[in-house]
């Protein structure tokens, strides 16, 4: 039988049992849609994270900290503000900036917010990060003790023109320390000298929700010269130089510090997200497996119902492989139709999830900037997700839809092909 005739014959058999074929196809549709929706979403998420990162950090910087980016330090080693002087002596280091940050309550116009107040060297920060530029006011080269540079999200927290803090405004910062069993509030008034241009991304560097004061002011105000991180700018971003300089910095501090390159960090995050993506696809794959068993079931029922028909085909000269081809084509068509519908549904679902998550994330108090130099304050951060349905994802979904159908139809199809015409014709 010609391939086209086999296809048309198989399609006729599917059409005859519309409801049953439809329900079987639905199993594949759900399985494929789940895979496509989840994978397109995680891929979209990955792309969004990567692009945000790439916008938000400089590849020619490394971060020196006592733990992994200041988290979970397992040593009692301490970095001090003046350690930048030692770091600056290392070859290939252009400059470095100590980061001293603490959560403070800030009285802004009509609202009080908890912000991460970060003490930095304005000049060094400007060299390191292209995003540390003033949109309003000017970042002073020699800052006064009470100057403050604020992120765009502090200036306009709702993104709708409701200005809460502007150049020239004085802001009262306060944080508490314990004195015995009571809390003592330590206050400081600062004056906004500059508002940063909107960054839009998050990463290891300035952020829209950042609040920056001179490092000397921070040392005095927070009453400490212990810093969590020192950001180091290198003369270029070649991998060899990043590695050798990182090693030199570690050696300088007797290997008691960790030196993280943003590029390496991004690679780690990407690979972790990739793993999550595979895990999620695996879970979705279970539904595809169930759909496959559904196909096997339906094909066995079909085989029993159509034994006589198989006998007729064989009596008319059809070989076993023709019958095998008819059955496998039926299953393959169900798989193909299910996969195509599943891809469309999955892409739709992925978009809906993307819209939902984007809406959640753009809300005030949503996802915050990553640690780093910007200080981790939350809110005012916007991030849009668009699920990514790549051609390879489409091909993968089509492949799995059809292959799962074929694999599960193989047993009933082989049984059908092995029937002898006399026995098959005898069946009621």
């Amino acid at each position: 039988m010609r391939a086209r005739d086999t296809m048309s014959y198989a399609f006729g058999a599917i059409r005859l049992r519309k409801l049953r074929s439809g329900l079987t196809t639905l199993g594949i549709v759900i399985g494929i849609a789940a895979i496509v929706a989840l994978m397109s979403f995680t891929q979209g998420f990955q792309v969004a994270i990567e692009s945000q990162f790439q916008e938000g950090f400089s590849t020619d910087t490394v971060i020196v900290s006592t733990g992994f980016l200041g988290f979970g330090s397992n040593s009692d080693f301490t970095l001090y503000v003046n350690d930048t002087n030692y770091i600056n002596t290392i070859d290939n280091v252009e400059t470095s900036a100590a980061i001293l940050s603490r959560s403070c309550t800030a009285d802004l116009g009509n609202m009080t917010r908890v912000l991460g107040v970060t003490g930095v060297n304005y000049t060094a920060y400007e060299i390191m990060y292209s995003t540390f530029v003033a949109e309003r006011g000017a970042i002073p080269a020699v800052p006064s003790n009470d100057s403050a540079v604020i992120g765009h999200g502090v200036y306009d927290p709702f993104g709708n023109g409701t200005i809460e803090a502007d150049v020239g405004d004085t802001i009262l910062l306060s944080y508490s320390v314990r004195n015995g069993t009571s809390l003592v509030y330590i206050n400081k008034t600062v004056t906004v000298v500059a508002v940063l241009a909107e960054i839009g991304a998050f990463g290891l560097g300035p952020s829209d929700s950042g609040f920056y004061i001179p490092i000397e002011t921070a040392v005095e105000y927070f009453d400490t010269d212990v810093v969590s991180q020192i950001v180091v700018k290198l003369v270029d971003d070649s991998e060899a130089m990043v590695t050798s300089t990182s090693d030199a910095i570690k050696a300088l501090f007797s290997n008691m510090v960790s030196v993280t390159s943003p590029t390496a960090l991004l690679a780690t995050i990407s690979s972790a997200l990739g793993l999550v993506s595979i895990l999620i696809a695996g879970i979705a794959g279970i539904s595809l497996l169930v759909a496959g068993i559904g196909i096997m079931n339906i094909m066995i029922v079909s085989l029993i119902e159509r034994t006589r028909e198989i006998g007729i085909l064989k009596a008319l000269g059809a070989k076993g492989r023709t019958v095998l081809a008819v059955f496998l084509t039926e299953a393959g068509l169900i798989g193909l139709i299910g996969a195509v519908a599943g891809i469309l549904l999955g892409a739709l679902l992925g978009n809906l999830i993307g819209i939902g998550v984007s809406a959640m994330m753009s809300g005030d108090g949503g996802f915050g900037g990553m640690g780093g130099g910007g200080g981790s304050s939350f809110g005012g951060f916007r991030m849009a997700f668009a699920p990514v349905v790549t051609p390879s994802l489409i091909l993968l979904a089509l492949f799995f839809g059809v292959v799962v159908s074929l694999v599960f139809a193989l047993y009933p199809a082989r049984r059908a092909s092995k029937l002898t015409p006399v026995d098959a014709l005898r069946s009621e």
Partner: protein
Amino acid sequence: MGQVKVEALRGVTFDIDRGELVSILGPSGSGKSTLLNMIGALDRPTSGNIVIEGVDASTLSDNKLAEMRKRVGFVFQFFNLIPRLDAKANVELPLAIAGLPSRERTRKAEEALKRVGLGDRMRHKSSELSGGERQRVAVARALVTEPSFLLMDEPTGNLDSVSAGEMMDLVVDLNSSKNMTAVIVTHNQEISDRTKRTMRMRDGRIVSDQVT
């Protein structure tokens, strides 16, 4: 399926020449359908030989048997049409299995249906046809491949006497005009009377073989 072996045929030996019109007459269970299935390459003997056009069918592989079936026109008592297909598609089926292109199939199927008097019923499904018409579709399907011989298993068993008569007219005509070999299994004496040679079977044996 049981484990007890039943000998449906025993010591059956005969030859059928090209162009003969033969009936095999016998009561139910006499082995006549089993014999026809073997002649038509639908079944294999457990022992003995069946030589069709010089080829020993009893030793052929499944695929070779399938090839041999393409040269046989088979008509069954219960028509064995595929219900979801219309008359034309049913008749086209053996041609599709043989891999003929669509246009040629259509032409041959239409010719065969016209030959059995169903030129105006081609688009009807078997459920929309009478018993006689269904059997004529089955005959058209058997003839469309221009087989070497026609095997009919109780072809009039489910037909009224008028339809049965028409069916036999058709077979006798094909035999005489096209010199087509035909073997008809029946338990109906009237059908048997219209053939030139009658073999009578009982308990798996041929008890008589008469040429009139």
